[in-house]
C-alpha cells in the first residue's frame, strides 16, 4: 500500500475510535457499552500498529500489542465478569437528556478541533485530525462521567479517556518513551483492579447504580467515629 492510502486508513480508523465514544455514551445497557469500549481499544491498537509501520518505529509494535491486550481484552473481560457477577446485565439506565447530551458531545468535538488548530499549524493535516480526535475522545470520556450516574459506566468513561490520551501520544509524537508507556499501562491496570474492588464494595451498599447518592460527606455532618 502506498503512504497516502495508509494515511487515509489511519484517519478512518481514528474516526471510528471517536464513533465508539459516541456509542458508549448513548448505550442504555452496560454490556453493549463495554463492547464498544473493547472495539475502541482494538481500533486504537490497529492505528498504533499502522503508525509503527509507516513511521518505521519498531517500539510502537510493542505498544500496539500492549494496548490490544490491555484495552481490548483484559479490561473489557474484567468489566464483563463484574457486570455478570453483580447481575447488572439487564440493568438499563436511560440518559436524562439524550438530545442535549449528543449536542454537547458534538460541541466538544468542534471545540477540540478549534483548540488543536493553532497547535499543529505547521504539521501534517492528518496529525492535526488525529490529535483533535484524541482530545475529543478525552473530553467525551469526561462528558460520559458527568452524564452517567452508574458506577460501571463512569469507569468506562474514565478508561476511554485513557484511550484518547494514548491515541494523542501515538499520533502527535509517535509514542512516548518505553519506560513511560510501561508505567502508564501499569497504572491503568492497577486502576482497573481497584475499580473492581470498589464495585464489589459499592454493590454491597446498593450505590452502584447511582453514584450521585454518594453525598453523605459535607459540612453539615457530624464526625462521630
Amino acid at each position, binding site marked *: 500500500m502506498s503512504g497516502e492510502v495508509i494515511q487515509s486508513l489511519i484517519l478512518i480508523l481514528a474516526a471510528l475510535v471517536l464513533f465508539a465514544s459516541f456509542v458508549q455514551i448513548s448505550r442504555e445497557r452496560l454490556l453493549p457499552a463495554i463492547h464498544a469500549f473493547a472495539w475502541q481499544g482494538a481500533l486504537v491498537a490497529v492505528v498504533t500498529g499502522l503508525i509503527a509501520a509507516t513511521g518505521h518505529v519498531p517500539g510502537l509494535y510493542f505498544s500496539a500489542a500492549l494496548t490490544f491486550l490491555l484495552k481490548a481484552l483484559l479490561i473489557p473481560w474484567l468489566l464483563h465478569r463484574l457486570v455478570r457477577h453483580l447481575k447488572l446485565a439487564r440493568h438499563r439506565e436511560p440518559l436524562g437528556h439524550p438530545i442535549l447530551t449528543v449536542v454537547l458531545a458534538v460541541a466538544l468535538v468542534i471545540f477540540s478541533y478549534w483548540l488543536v488548530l493553532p*497547535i499543529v499549524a505547521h504539521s501534517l493535516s492528518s496529525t492535526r485530525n488525529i490529535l483533535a480526535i484524541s*482530545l475529543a475522545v478525552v473530553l467525551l470520556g469526561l462528558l460520559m462521567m458527568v452524564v452517567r450516574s452508574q458506577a460501571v459506566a463512569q469507569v468506562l468513561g474514565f478508561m476511554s479517556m485513557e484511550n484518547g*490520551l494514548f491515541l494523542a501520544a501515538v499520533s502527535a509524537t509517535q509514542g512516548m518513551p518505553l519506560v*513511560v508507556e510501561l508505567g502508564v499501562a501499569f497504572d491503568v491496570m492497577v486502576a482497573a483492579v481497584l475499580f473492581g474492588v*470498589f464495585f464489589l464494595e459499592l454493590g454491597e451498599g446498593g450505590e452502584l447504580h447511582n453514584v450521585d447518592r454518594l453525598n453523605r460527606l459535607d*459540612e453539615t455532618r*457530624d464526625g*462521630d467515629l
Partner: protein
Amino acid sequence: MNALSNGFWPVVLTVYTPLLGIFVLALIGRAQRAGWVNVGCAGVSFAASIWLAWAYTVHGDIVAAGLRIDALNISLVVLNALVGLSTALFSRTYMLEMLSTRLSGARGVHGLRLYNSLFQAFLFTMLLALTTANLGVLWVAVEGCTLSTVLLVSLYRTPEALEAAWKYFMLCGVGIALALFGTVLVYFAAQHVLPNPAQGLNWSVLYTHRKQFEPTVMIIAFVFVLVGYGTKVGLVPMHQWLPDAHSEGPTPVSALLSGLLLNVALYAVLRIKLLVDGALAGTPSAHLAGHLLIGFGLVSLLVGALFLHRSRDIKRLFSYSSIGHMGMITFGFGLGGPLATFAALLYMIVHSLTKSAVFITVGHATHIAGTQTIDHIRGLIRTQPKVGWTLLIAVVALAGFPPFGLFTSEFLLLGATMHRAPLLAIVLLPGMAITFAGLFRHVQRMVYGPVPAGQTPVRANLWPVYVQMALVLWLGLTIPTLLAHWLGQATALVAGAPLP
C-alpha cells in the same frame, strides 16, 4: 566507577528503600513487627536523604539511575523523608490502637498489612515524583500516589470512607488524565526542537531548549497540566475530594496527604511552569502562567478560609486550612520574582512540617474524645495537658503567629505582594485574617473548657511532633545557612535571579 561515587547510593537508597518496603511489609502479618519494619524503612530512607544532602552539598547536582537532584528538589526530598519517618513513628502506635477499635476482626489484620504496605508505596511514589528526571515518569509517579492512597482512604470500609475514596479516585483520576495530555503536548513541542527527540521528556534537556518551544503549544499544555496536577494540589474548584479524603482516611494518611502530597503536586506544576515561562518569554503573554497561578491561588485562599468556619469535623477544618495555605503558596509562585519565590519555597517546607504535626496531634485528640466532631471535643488541656497544649501551640504556628516559620514566610510573601502588586494585598489580607479567626474560634473551645464526663488520657507519643515544631520554631527565628543556600539556588532557578 567514578559516576557511581557521586551520590549514586544515597539517591538510590532514599528513593528505593520504600519500594523494597512495599514488598517486605506485604509479607509481614504480625502487627507489632510490621509497625517497626515500617518505621525502619522510613528511617533508612531518611538517613539516606541526609547522606544525599551531604553529597549534594559537596558535588552539586546529582544525576543517577534516572533520578535527578537539583536545587529545587533537594530540600523537598529531605523534608519528605523526615515527615515520612515521623508519621511512620506515629502510625505504629496509632494503628495498633485502631486494630482494637475501628479495624477489629479478621479483616483488621489484613487491613493493617495492606495499610503498612501502601504506606511505603505512598512514600515511594512521592519520592519518585520529586526526584525523577523524566516528566513522563513524574506523571506515572503522581498517578501512583493516587492509586496507593485510594485504598488507604477507604481502609475503614465505612460507607463514608468508601464515598470519600470513590470521589478521590474519580476526581484525581480525571485530573491526572488531563495532566498527561499536557505532558504529551510538551513532548510534542519538544519533538520539533530537540536534536534527539527521544529525550523529549527529560526535564534538564527540555530546560536547556525551553526558549525555542512553540509558545501556543506550551500555553495549552500548561492549562492542562495546571488543571490536572492542580486537582491534586487542592486548588479550588477542583478541591472537592480533599476534605472528604482527609476526614475519612486514617489520621497518619491525612498527615501525609496534607503535609507532603499537596507539595509534590505543586512541585510538578512548578517544573512545567519553568519550561512554559522560558517558551513564553518575550511574547505578549509572557506572564500568563504566573497570572493563572495567582488567580487559582487567591480563590483557593478565600474558599479555604470561608469553609473553615463552617466545618464541624476537626479533620475537615484542617484540610480546608491546607487548601488555603496551598492557595497562598501557589499565589507566591504566580507572583514570581526572587522574594515571593523564596517565600513560597520556605512556605512549602514550614507548612508541611506544621500541618503534619497538627494532624498527628489531632489523631491523639480524636482518640481522647472518641469523635471528630468539633462540638464534642472539649477540655483537652485538662484531660491531657501534653496533647492540649501541643495542639494549641501547633495551631498558633499554623495561623502564622511569630516566632514560628509560617510567620516568616507569610510576612515575606506579603512584603513581596505589597512591593509588586499592592492591589492583590486587598484580597490576601482578609483571606489570612478570616483563616486566622476561623482556626482560633474552633480550637480554643476544644482545648479549654470543662472536661466531658468519662474522658481519660490516652497513650500518646508526641516526640515526632516536638521535633517538627522545634524545626518550625528554628526556621522562624533564623534560617540555617545551608537551607538558605539551597533555597537561594532554587529561587535562582525558578525566578531567574537569586535573592539579593
